[in-house]
Structures are given as structure tokens and as C-alpha cells.
């Protein structure tokens, strides 16, 4: 949302209760919307952006509410102590759940949240000290500076202050180093890991963040209603919170608040109107919400908020937040790592082997790369180049063999730790995050070079690190010649440009070794020339490059050493001139003169002639 609309929104919110004639019912309804908005803001980060679906946020609301209800109504404690207790319990449960579910595929988290929500519902309903099904009545109001917030109008200001603060933290979080990592979780988890992003850790952060907001909502709810009972923390409420997010927006915090308002207003209207139309007591709102969500998912995947904003602002293309100002332009450059002197051995691959079942995709390959060298790995389709590539980058576990990088063994190292050693890669199928700007995509590559964490991001104390990262991204984009489209959304670039962005992102890691998987595929002649110039410039700076490529012309001009693979086996190695004369290579590419030789090789190399590409 634009700045002026936020200000107008805040102004209207602040004014509403003091306008004479505004019915108390409106204020109560807005209080409910505010409390739900807190939960939904967490869900926007967790589910909409992070791609982790929780149906059980009502659990955390319940914990926040029951903790303060028990402490303040039963034990006569202060509501503020209740807040602390609620948040601590929420953190504990969220952390345990995260450890148990977040290593598995996403749907396990979703199922677990349903189960946990039911567990707590039945616990509240049966625990004597929580009042069983009757709940806990007589909760005292929150006191601010000795002034008890008894009236709906007075707690209204507290609720909406908390909502606005929460929205601020969510926007801060998403627009930061941590935020880029969280935004990569949904569609680019593997890519992020290969730039050293500890993806599991960011899943935990998103989950715990959403849980804490829900716990906070529970605390406000308990002191607003002044009573709690199990029914409002059941699974249907958990599902409703998710629906608010789906209907509102999957990416905008303001959209989440809008979704909460839509669903709660609809619910109220339906419960008002339906009994007049049908004589039976039907849960008519369930049917409406269900149908609404199915329709939204079919026809407006991003939620209804983008439609609303388009109505107000027109369909102008939105650049990524805060980017156009280039506030980071004066940030100091990031320090660079020392590169080993040219000619020193950098990467040694020995007897590398990968079997998929009975198929040997990579058959005992050995080669090495020296510092300051560009080595080309070539071969026809299905030769096992990309598999070799994925073995070196730790994406695919190898069957056996050894990979040594600067005297450290790599064979059992995970992708994210390989990045830490100074190895950066590009992907054959470009893996940019289309909803993020080009600049932010490249900044993700520099993730490891600064350390600003989630808490600093949330409180906006990360700006120095953030500026340095964005500046670095801009420098790399200038270097590859894409300085003029850094504020475009990555998804809007042509495929050729996306490939170059991949190179810039890899460079942002400040690697010692750069692994490029078919960087020239889909590029036009001029673009290839420019890429070749960038790469030879990098070599002159002491960068080492492993290049997997189809374009012979491109490879022959750039590389000093070539490794040729066919059907998983290395068939030749040498300088470009030697390779051009090599009989086996010619045979592999152009077909042999003697068919028997080829059949022999196939029989030796593979048990199956399936094509293996990753």
C-alpha cells in the first residue's frame, strides 16, 4: 500500500471511535477484525510468502488467551505477566512443532497443525483448572498507566496499535536479508540452499513469528472479551484464519487485514440474514466460506487485495519496495575474499560415480581445475554433465568418489555448506524468484556475506547490512551489463537476461569457483559475446570457472581445458585444439564411422539407454 493510503487508513482508524453516533457494535466488530488481523499477518508471512500452510493458528491464539486468563483471573496476576507467559508458551510449542514437522514436506506441517489444534481444543475442554467447557470468566481488563481498558473504545486503540506495529514488523521482515530467504522458501528452496541459506532455520523463524503474533492476538482477545472458552479456539477458527489470508492476499500484509475484514463482516452479515431465510439453524457461513475460497483459488490466486489495489491505483507496475530510491547507493563495498594464486590446484574430482538404480549416470569421472582456469565440461545430451554438476554442488548425493576443494573433502557436504566454501553456481533451468526484483534476486546470492538476522530485520536495525548487500547486488548487475533493469521483476525479463541474472547472483557470493550450467543457452549472438567478455574478465581477476555448455564456439573460445563426457563416461580431456581433433569426441557428436565401436561403448557404459538429465 502506498504511504499516503497508509496514513489515511491510520487517520480514519484513529478518528472512528470519537465520531459521534458510531454504534458500539462497529467498534466491537473492528476489535474482532484487528485481533484476527494479527493472526492473518503472521499467516501472510508463513503461508502466503513462505509457502508453509498452517490450519492451526487458533491453537496459538488459544494458548495466548488461556495463559493470560488463567494467570489474571484464577491466580490474580497482572495481564502483563499473562502476556509474558502466553508468549513463552507459544514460543515453546511453536519451536517443538517446528522441529518435528518442518524437515518433512509441507503437507505434514498442515496435518500436524490440524491435529494439534484438536488436541488443545479437547485439553481446554477437559482440564479442570481451565474451567473445562465453560472456560474462564471474569478476566480483568488490561491496565495502561493505571488506566483500565474497560470499554470497547479504549481497548480498540491498543488492539489497532498492536496491529499496525505487527504490520510494520512484517513488512520490515519481508524486506530484508531474512525476508529474501523466507520468500525463497516457497519456490526456490534448493536454489536458496545453494547460496548458503539455512532454509530450515528460516522455516522455523517464519513459523515462530506467525505463532507469536497469534499468541499476542489471544492475549488481546482474552482481555477484550473478558472470558475465554474452548469453542473459539477450535479447528474451524484455525481454518477461518487461513481463509482470511487466502481471500485477502498471499503476499501483502495490508491484504491480510483486508481479508480478515471481509471474512468477519461476511460472517456477521450471514449470521444476521440466514436465519430469516431458512427456518433451520444452518451453518450457512461455512458453505459460503468454502465456496468463496474455492472460487478465489480458482480465479484469483493472489487473493482479492490485488483487485482492490488495482481499482484504487490503476494497473501500474509495482516495483519492489523501496528500491527506486537507491538509498543504499553510498554503502561501502563488501570485502572480497583472497583468491589462491593462479595455477594452484583448486578442485580435484576423482572417480566420481552416480548410479540411479541400475543406471550409471556418472561413471568414475576424474578431472581437476586450477585457480584462474576456465574448464569446460561438454558432451551430447544425456552425457551426465548436469548430474556431475549436481554432484559437485551437493544437490545430488554421490554413490562414491571424492571431490576435494582447496584441500577440503566435499563429498558429504550439504549444498548450503558448499556455498560457504566459496563455490557459487547457476542453474540450467533458471531459478529466479519471479515476484522479486532483479536486484533482490541478486542480493540473495550475497546472503552469506552479511549476518543481519530476523530480529534486527523486524526492528529495522539491519539497514547498514541491507544497504551493503543491495549495493553489492547492484555492482554485480552493472558488471554483467544489466544495471538498467535491476528494478524490474525478475519474472518479466527475457530468458536470456534471466540467465545473466543467474551469473550476477552467483558472483554476489564472491566465489572462488564459479560453476555455470549452460549459461549461454537461449542467448542471442550479441548476448553471448557480452557474456564471454564478462567471463574472461573474471578469469583475469583470478576467478576459476567450470562451464557446462552446448555451444562449441562459445566453449572453444573461452576455455583453456576441456573435459568431454558421453554416456556418463569421460571420453577425452585436453586443450580445445586437442579436443577438436579427438576421434572419440567427433564420433560422440557427429556419429561414428564404425557403428560397432559405438555399440560397444554403450554396452560398457550403461545398462539402460535412458536419457538422464536433471
Amino acid at each position: 500500500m502506498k504511504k499516503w493510503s497508509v496514513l489515511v487508513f491510520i487517520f480514519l482508524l484513529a478518528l472512528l471511535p470519537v465520531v459521534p453516533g458510531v454504534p458500539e457494535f462497529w467498534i466491537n466488530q473492528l476489535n474482532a477484525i484487528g485481533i484476527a488481523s494479527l493472526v492473518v499477518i503472521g499467516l501472510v508471512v508463513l503461508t502466503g510468502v513462505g509457502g508453509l500452510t498452517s490450519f492451526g493458528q487458533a491453537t496459538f491464539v488459544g494458548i495466548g488467551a488461556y495463559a493470560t486468563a488463567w494467570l489474571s483471573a484464577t491466580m490474580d496476576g497482572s495481564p502483563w505477566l499473562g502476556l509474558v507467559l502466553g508468549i513463552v508458551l507459544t514460543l515453546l510449542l511453536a519451536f517443538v512443532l517446528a522441529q518435528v514437522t518442518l524437515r518433512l514436506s509441507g503437507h505434514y506441517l498442515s496435518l500436524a497443525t490440524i491435529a494439534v489444534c484438536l488436541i488443545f481444543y479437547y485439553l481446554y475442554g477437559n482440564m479442570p483448572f481451565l474451567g473445562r467447557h465453560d472456560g474462564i470468566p471474569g478476566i480483568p481488563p488490561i491496565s495502561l498507566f493505571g488506566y483500565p481498558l474497560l470499554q470497547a473504545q479504549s481497548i480498540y486503540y491498543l488492539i489497532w496499535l498492536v496491529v499496525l506495529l505487527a504490520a510494520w514488523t512484517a513488512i520490515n521482515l519481508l524486506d530484508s536479508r531474512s525476508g529474501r530467504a523466507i520468500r525463497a522458501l516457497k519456490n526456490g528452496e534448493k536454489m536458496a540452499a545453494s547460496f548458503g541459506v539455512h532454509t530450515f532455520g528460516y522455516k522455523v523463524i517464519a513459523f515462530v513469528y506467525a505463532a507469536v503474533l497469534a499468541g499476542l492476538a489471544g492475549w488481546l482477545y482474552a482481555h477484550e472479551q473478558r472470558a475465554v472458552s474452548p469453542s473459539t479456539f477450535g479447528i474451524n477458527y484455525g481454518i477461518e484464519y487461513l481463509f482470511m489470508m487466502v481471500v485477502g492476499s498471499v503476499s501483502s500484509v495490508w491484504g491480510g487485514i483486508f481479508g480478515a475484514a471481509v471474512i468477519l463482516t461476511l460472517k456477521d452479515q450471514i449470521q444476521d440474514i440466514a436465519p430469516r431465510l431458512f427456518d433451520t439453524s444452518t451453518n450457512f457461513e461455512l458453505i459460503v466460506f468454502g465456496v468463496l475460497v474455492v472460487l478465489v483459488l480458482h480465479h484469483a490466486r493472489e487473493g482479492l487485495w490485488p483487485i482492490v489495489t488495482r481499482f484504487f491505483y490503476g494497473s501500474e507496475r509495482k516495483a519492489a519496495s523501496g528500491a527506486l530510491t537507491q538509498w543504499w547507493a553510498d554503502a561501502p563495498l563488501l570485502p572480497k575474499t583472497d583468491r589462491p594464486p593462479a595455477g594452484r590446484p583448486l578442485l580435484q574430482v576423482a572417480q566420481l560415480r552416480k548410479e540411479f538404480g541400475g543406471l550409471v549416470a556418472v561413471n568414475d569421472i576424474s578431472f581437476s581445475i586450477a585457480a584462474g582456469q576456465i574448464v569446460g565440461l561438454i558432451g551430447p545430451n544425456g552425457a551426465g554433465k548436469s548430474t556431475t554438476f549436481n554432484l559437485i554442488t551437493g544437490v545430488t548425493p554421490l554413490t562414491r568418489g571424492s571431490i576435494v576443494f582447496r584441500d577440503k573433502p566435499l563429498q558429504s557436504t550439504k549444498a548450503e555448506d558448499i556455498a560457504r566454501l566459496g563455490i557459487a553456481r547457476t542453474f540450467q533451468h533458471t531459478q529466479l524468484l519471479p515476484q522479486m526484483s532483479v536486484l533482490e534476486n541478486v542480493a540473495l546470492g550475497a546472503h552469506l556475506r552479511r549476518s543481519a538476522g530476523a530480529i534486527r530485520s523486524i526492528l529495522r536495525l539491519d539497514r547498514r547490512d541491507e544497504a551493503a548487500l543491495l549495493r553489492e547486488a547492484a555492482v554485480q548487475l552493472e558488471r554483467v551489463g544489466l544495471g538498467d533493469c535491476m528494478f524490474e521483476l525478475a519474472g518479466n525479463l527475457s530468458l536470456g537476461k534471466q540467465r545473466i541474472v543467474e551469473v550476477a547472483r552467483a558472483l554476489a557470493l564472491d566465489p572462488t569457483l564459479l560453476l555455470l550450467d549452460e549459461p549461454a543457452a537461449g542467448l542471442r549472438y550479441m548476448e553471448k559475446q557480452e557474456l564471454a567478455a564478462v567471463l574472461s574478465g573474471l578469469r583475469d581477476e583470478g576467478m576459476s570457472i567450470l562451464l557446462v555448455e552446448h555451444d562449441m564456439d562459445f566453449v572453444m573460445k573461452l576455455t583453456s581445458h576441456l573435459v568431454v563426457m558421453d554416456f556418463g563416461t569421460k571420453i577425452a580431456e585436453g586443450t580445445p585444439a586437442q579436443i577438436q581433433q579427438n576421434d572419440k569426441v567427433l564420433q560422440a557428436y557427429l556419429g561414428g564411422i564404425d557403428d560397432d565401436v559405438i555399440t560397444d561403448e554403450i554396452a560398457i557404459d550403461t545398462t539402460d539407454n535412458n536419457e538422464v538429465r536433471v
Partner: protein
Amino acid sequence: MDWSIAKILMQDGLVTGVIYALLAVSLVLVFAVTRIILIVQGEFVTYGALTFAVLADDQVPGTRWLLVIAGLLVFARELWLVFQGKPAATLIRSALFCLALPIIVFFAVPAVLGTTPSLWIKALMTLFLVVPLGPMLYKLAYESMADSSVLALFVISIAVHFVFVGMGLAFFGAEGRLVAQPFFDGQLELFGLNWTYQSLFVIAMTAVIIAALWLFFGYTLYGKALRATAVNRRGARLVGISTNMSGFLTFLLSSIVGVLSGIMIVSFISITYETGFMIGLKGFVGAIIGGLMSYPIAAAGALLVGIIESFSTFWASEYKEVIVFALIIPVLLILSVITRHDEEE
């Protein structure tokens, strides 16, 4: 607690456990073929159970209206697709399934009910009334989203669950129903326990259904097509197995399984419009024990759920749901330790 009580609890747990097992197998099947987490499986149980219970009281169930309306909606959608360029020839089959079948059922049910039919005929009518809703649901809610992420499909399932629960209350009311007349009267003694014929019938039926599924998947072309889709969707599509066909068929199977489970379970558990959700989730606990992949482990897990549930009813009846659902926490913990992150596309 002595051994005789334990045996009785085991027996109770076994009878509900086999139904959970049936659902667990169906859930794994649907997930493998379509990647849909079919929360509504439980609603097929409810609708089957309650429709059967209404028929058993010699009343005409409101679900016949639902069948006609759903049929009309699906047909309207098919018409729209033909208008968009789908071959018009497919309309004949759609018309038979979406218009002719529901209308025949709509008028046949009261007519047959007038002849005071046996419980078996009522069970058959229940199948005709509820089973077509499964494939119709697939067409309406899932078909055009078949390629979405698992999580988007999951949210749709939850939304559909809301719709079914809401309509369930409208059609069947809030009170629970039980069918007191059994299919078979009498009992016999086995392993020192009294088994009603009805409970043995439930166990035998479950075995028959699982055997039928096994035969279908092992020996029919359609069964093999579904298996192929489960192993590799894109590969299956390349050899001409349509995603729409496999989705339709899978939902048909799962609604048959759900409705049969409902008809069986309503003879010993009182079912309300909401119960199905819990029953389905217990099937899910079993399915999760099988990692949503293995049919036999899922079935065994679901049996275990039934037995644990019956024992916890005895020891701590207030906390039985808590105990059953808490089961998934250690299961997920074990899964996350043993599962390696495999390459996904």
C-alpha cells in the same frame, strides 16, 4: 484391568480400526494418484452413514436434491468447456452421468422406499445417492487445479470440507443417528469373546473391499493406469493417461470406500454431521504412520489407532481424542529423522 476387559477393548478397537484402515488406504490412494489430501473423505462417510440412517427410518433423504444440483453444476461446467473448445461428443456421457443418473435416482428413491425394501436395498440406494457426489466434486473443485501445489489442493480440500459440513447440518440436522437394525442378527463365540454377526460382517466387508482394490490395481487396465499416475504423473500423461480420468476414477473409488464405511460404522457408532471429519482424521493418522505412501503400513497404523482409541476410552475417556491425535507427533518425529530430503521437481 484384567485380560477379559483387554480382549473386549481389543475387539472394539478392531471393529472401528478396520474402518479407519479402509479410509487410510483410500487416503493414501487419493494422495498418491492426485496429490490431494482428501479431508472430505470423512464427509463421504458422514453422508453415507446419515443417508443410510434416514433411509432406514423410511424417510426420503435430502441428499437427493444435492445430487441433482451437483449434477446440474457439473453439466453446466461441461457445457462451458465444450463452448471453450472441448469435443462435443463428451457431452453425451456427461449428460448421462450428471443429468440422467441423478434424476433417475431422485425419483426412484421415494418409489422404491414405498415398497418397504430390505436394509440391503436401502444400502444400495445410499450408494447411488452419495457415491456420484465424489467424482462430481472432483470435476467442480479440483479438475481445473489438478496441477497446483499439494498445499493449494489441501486448502481446497479444507474449503470443500466446510461446504460439506455446512450442507450436512442443513440436510441431516444436528442430532446424531444410529441404525439399530443390523444386516445380520445374532452372535457367535470366538476366542472367548462374543462377536455379533454385524461386527464380523464389517471385518469381512473390509477384507473384501481391500481385496477388490488389490485386484483392481493389479489386474485391470484402469487400475494400472492409476498406478502409473501415482508413480509418475508426467510420464503417465505422455503415454495417454489423462489426469482428469485418473482424478475422476480415484474420487469414485474413494467415495465408494467412504460411503461403504459410513453404512457399516453407523450400525455401532452414533454419527452426526460433524463426526466424519474426526473419523477421516483418524484414518489420516494411520495414513501418516504409513508416510502417506505405504498401503499396508497405513492400514496397520489405522488398526492401531482404533485399538489405542478403544483403550484410551477405557482409561481416560475424556482425553481419548487427545491421545489419538497426539500419536502423530512421535510418528512425525520418526519420519523426519528417517526421511532424507529427496529430489523433488
